[in-house]
């Protein structure tokens, strides 16, 4: 049995302007000890997916309208708040993008770490403090015991994210959800934090969901990748398969749009920009959501009439497109080159 199974999850926001279909039929599963990368651009629904798993979506305006989040056989969407609190922070922990705003500036670092431990483990204050020092040590904060009584403003961005990681690990969770954990950090600090996450994930035998807009970060950290666009999964595969044989025109375009750090003729070349912008999720296209920006979409065919199903093109490789790379004829490809 998979550790986590998300089935046809739909999280909608009911706003005055209309219903925003932020997450619209997302399914994936995650095995114990594995890392899943969810990648996509802003507004694609990747963070709302994570918050829905954690039961942290703001209600109202948001609501899980259908679907299930099955964690170790229990559907988290049906749990009462109190039961959910036993899972959250304990069995599933989460770290967020902005370590600057996630820590309470008026509480000492130590207080914030021991809070979680005491809520879930029911240990004494002294015991929780001892554990907090161990944790700070483990996330490589120098002089951990001495820094426990500091306030967050004494910590740099990289160190704060380490504190967040320490707090997330405090109860030995089975699943860690990291939502853009390194986006606010400098590139050298990002590398350290990613290395640390990988090392701890192995030590603790955790599964991890890493949510990011950065194709480089998933290439580094993930075993499997889900690509999201406009609230839906458009492609899913193992990391090597996805980068070796991207099938969805969006995945392909996203990879083409990335400037490269290695190679020749980079200065002279142009990037393959994706024209237009993602659709309004209040009124998404009834047909393929990527259709309006897709170089292969054709007025005559299904692209403008129906939203393609997510289908298994090869074992383990799912794609939601009428024009995956491997099914494209030469003529299509020629047409698309401007």
């Amino acid at each position, binding site marked *: 049995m998979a550790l986590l199974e998300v089935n046809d999850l739909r999280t909608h926001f009911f706003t005055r302007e209309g219903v925003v279909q932020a997450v619209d039929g997302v399914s994936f599963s995650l095995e114990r000890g594995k890392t899943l990368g969810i990648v996509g651009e802003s507004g694609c629904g990747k963070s709302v997916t994570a918050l829905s798993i954690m039961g942290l979506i703001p209600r109202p305006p948001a609501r899980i309208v259908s679907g299930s989040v099955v964690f170790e056989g229990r559907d988290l969407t049906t749990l009462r708040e109190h039961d959910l609190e036993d899972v959250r922070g304990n069995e599933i922990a989460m770290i967020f993008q902005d370590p600057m705003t996630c820590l309470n500036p008026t509480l000492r670092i130590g207080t914030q770490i021991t809070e979680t431990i005491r809520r879930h483990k029911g240990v004494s204050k002294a015991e929780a403090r001892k554990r907090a020092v161990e944790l700070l040590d483990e996330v490589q904060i120098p002089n951990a015991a001495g820094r426990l009584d500091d306030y967050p403003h004494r910590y740099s961005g990289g160190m704060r994210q380490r504190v967040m990681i320490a707090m997330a690990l405090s109860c030995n969770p089975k699943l860690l959800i990291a939502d853009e954990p390194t986006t606010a950090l400098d590139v050298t600090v990002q590398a350290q934090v990613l290395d640390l996450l990988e090392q701890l994930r192995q030590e603790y035998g955790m599964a991890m969901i890493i949510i990011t807009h950065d194709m480089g970060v998933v290439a580094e950290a993930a075993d499997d990748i889900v690509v999201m666009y406009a609230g839906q999964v458009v492609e899913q595969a193992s990391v090597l398969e996805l980068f070796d044989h991207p099938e969805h025109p969006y995945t392909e375009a996203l990879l083409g749009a*990335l400037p490269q750090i290695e190679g020749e003729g980079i200065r002279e070349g142009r990037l393959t920009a994706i024209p237009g912008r993602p659709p309004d999720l209040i009124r998404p296209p009834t047909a393929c959501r990527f259709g309006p920006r897709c170089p292969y979409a054709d007025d005559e065919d299904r692209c403008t009439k129906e939203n393609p199903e997510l289908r298994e093109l090869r074992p383990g490789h799912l794609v939601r497109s009428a024009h995956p790379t491997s099914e494209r004829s030469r003529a299509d490809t020629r047409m698309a080159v401007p």
Partner: protein
Amino acid sequence: MSSNGALLSVTDLHKHFPVREGLLIERTVSEVKAVDGVSFDIPEGETLGLVGESGSGKSTTGYCILQLLKPTSGSVRFLGEELTGLSREAMRRMRRELQIVFQDPYASLDPRMTVGDIVAEPLVVHSIGDRRRRRDTVRELLDVVGFNPNFTNRYPHEFSGGQRQRIGIARALALNPKLIVCDEPVSALDVSIQAQILNLLKDLQRDFGLTYLFIAHDLAVVRAMSDRIAVMNRGKLVEIGLAEEVYTNPQEDYTKALLSAVPVPDPRRMKERKAERRRLRGALADTLAT
């Protein structure tokens, strides 16, 4: 033009900020050397990429060149004139040739001005053309940057980040400048939109012979844009050279560490790079801020 033929020559530029303490009686207790002896030239028509991590002093360097911050010492020569000694009026006139595109297209456009007024403002300030001529110029500029000229009466909030950045670029182009300082122009944008803006900046450089100082923290973005690259760390220029050489054969440990830390969208290469960056980190523990 200066003696060595460069459009812009920066020599031994310093910018120090005082650190003050005390509630009632403030006194200066120390200084932060945000820019600490930076020198470089940019020949006309070229792009110099200025790359570094947060706090390295790259944006401060840009502001000091534009005299938006007054340098503590050093020289900034542009079109053969020393900018650091210019009067306010002379500098105002000089700004026709020297423009900037800011990082955050959400904060750098006045929300109470229409798109047309924003792009026309530099023309008004420098009393160029009459009302009608300016309106035509604004439409042309917006067209050039790929923004629908029929939207001149709308307000910035109606547009996405990418579209707003196009407005910011049109404003920078309005006076037909020689040099544009691009300060993190795409870091607030999604990848697919980022590519549109980078391509636009490349096209404009080709069509108008622009010279760029391109400031960014993203090493891949800088490489895509730059002929030469300068790496900054803690206010100092660590390394400067042709883009190809700096990236394929970095000389300084800091540059090596910086480059090795970038995640690349290739899982196989990533394995090798991870090993490399672990090796380098040991050698560099003290140079890097945690």
